[in-house]
């Protein structure tokens, strides 16, 4: 490979960044094009600089390395780094992505880079793998927040802010108290990842937060609609199974 690997380091701890930099310093095929201290900057840097390789820490302020992946328009090769996170380890192993456990040796890091180079030479795409990775994680326990990106701004939506979610083919629209946000995720993902005590899939196209339901009306024979508490009194269709689920959750 003649060209150097354009490499980005995303890591919140200075000492950990220093170590990576010192390991990479004498590697002729690596060129460090930037360092980021948090996930917000990381997303921006990846989307703008389009690096070949990213060293990505999982635990970071604002948003985690996993949440970052969901916000990338461009998916580079990623070597994850983490100190101790059982969830992450399971996800890494199941999806065969590269990861380094802190503290790691230089040799260990170099062999991870070798694998990446190999993949780039073979023209392997990582996007799908990374997508699976971010979906896997949510399967383990209920999520408590969702990160979204509108144009250039990243929003962190805690799940209690979500009023309802509407399906739009490959995307979903998340409606909160102060607006709506589009996200590339499936309804299935949210149905599985949101706590069913608070969120009900009332219809093929809708998941609604129970606290935002004002009333349930019979619309036709055997067909219902949910009216939300907002000032527009948003009406959402309820399917037969959806109605059953509402009844089960709200005990009426």
């Amino acid at each position, binding site marked *: 490979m003649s060209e150097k690997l354009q490499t980005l380091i995303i890591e919140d*701890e200075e000492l*950990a960044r220093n170590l990576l930099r*010192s390991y990479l310093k004498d590697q002729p095929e690596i060129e460090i094009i930037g360092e980021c201290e948090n996930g917000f900057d990381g997303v921006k840097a990846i989307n703008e600089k389009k690096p070949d390789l990213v060293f990505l820490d999982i635990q970071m302020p*604002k948003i985690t390395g996993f949440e970052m992946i969901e916000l990338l328009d461009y998916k580079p090769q990623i070597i994850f780094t983490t100190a101790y996170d059982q969830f992450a380890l399971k996800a890494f192993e199941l999806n065969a992505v590269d990861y380094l*456990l*802190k*503290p790691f040796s230089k040799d260990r890091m170099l062999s991870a880079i070798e694998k990446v180079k190999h993949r780039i030479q073979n023209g392997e795409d990582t996007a799908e793998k990374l997508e699976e990775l971010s979906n896997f994680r949510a399967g383990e326990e209920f999520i408590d927040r969702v990160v979204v990106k509108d144009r250039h701004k990243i929003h962190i939506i805690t799940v*209690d802010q979500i009023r309802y979610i509407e399906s739009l083919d490959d995307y979903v629209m998340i409606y909160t108290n102060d607006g709506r946000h589009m996200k590339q995720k499936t309804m299935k993902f949210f149905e599985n990842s949101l706590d069913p005590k608070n969120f009900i899939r009332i219809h093929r196209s809708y998941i609604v937060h129970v606290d935002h339901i004002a009333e349930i009306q019979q619309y036709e024979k055997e067909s219902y609609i949910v009216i939300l508490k907002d000032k527009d009194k948003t009406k959402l269709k309820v399917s037969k199974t959806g109605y059953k689920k509402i009844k089960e959750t709200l005990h009426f």
Partner: protein
Amino acid sequence: MNHPLTNNYRLLIYYALFWAVIGVTNLILLIFFYNVPFTYSLLDTISTFVIYPLLGSSIWYSIRYNNPEEITIGRLIVFHFIAASILCGIWVTLIYAIFKPFVPQGNDFLKNTLPSKIFGGYVMYAVYLIFFYAVNYYQSLKEKVKKEGEYMALIREAELQALKSQINPHFLFNSLNSISSLTVSDPEKAQEMVINLSTFMRYSLLHNEKEMVAFSRELENIKLYLSIEKVRFGKKLNAEFEIDAHCLDAEIPNMILQPLFENAIKYGVYETTDQVTIKTTCECDGNVLKITIVNDYDHSTLKRKGEGIGLRNIRKRMEIIYNQPDLMKITDNKTSFEVQLIIPQKQALS
């Protein structure tokens, strides 16, 4: 379970006294009211109130190895009837053997009293049965209560052990990573951090979960912990202490503060990119020490789910140690998070 009479010296004395009193009463009655000759009265008394009690004490074994809950009532009755018959047989044989030399040939004393003796033997067997069942029941009950107490103590201990904060592996591996980095850039500082980390870990391993330490000692350990975390987080972590010197002698459970600081770092320092201050204040009045730890946190990125497992463990541990609820108070001001520990003191602080 041993025989209650050989096992319990006092019970044995009461047993002997009981039969002695009845025996003497019987003797007096026979001699003075029924005008039975002295020899006969004495022999009769000995046979009924000395020999029978000696034999009867073995009835214990017939109930000990026959749990009425395990065998049917029919079998139990048959068993005891056979046991009573054997016992009475032995008893009557013994009486004959003892009486023989004293009773002249042709005297019907023995023959006449035999049916009432045998009947009495069966009745006595029944009385013994009730007595021993009662003793047995009482002993098992006592044993059960004792076992239950031991069991509860074991549970409490295990609970405490579990509740005592363990070194968070995340903290450990991140610190080791910092050290790894420092060995390249600043070996001296790396060495210092290794020593700090060792001292901190030794403190947390050495003290057992019940042990009380001086507040000053715990505070030292916290400062050590924060100095290790400060190497990782740099300027982001700012710790302030306002400690009254006369509170330093107060006693507190060891390692009770560290999880609070760990929590403050996890939710405060870790989740933001700005500097976070963790402020520790304390006051001691009368018989309590109150320690308050406040940290800023970024409300926008976090949805706090009330008490995490760390705080819950501390609350539980305080409850077990002091047998008193509500020794931990939590106030969430949306931009800052406050935890107050109220630690009762055995001795008033001067």
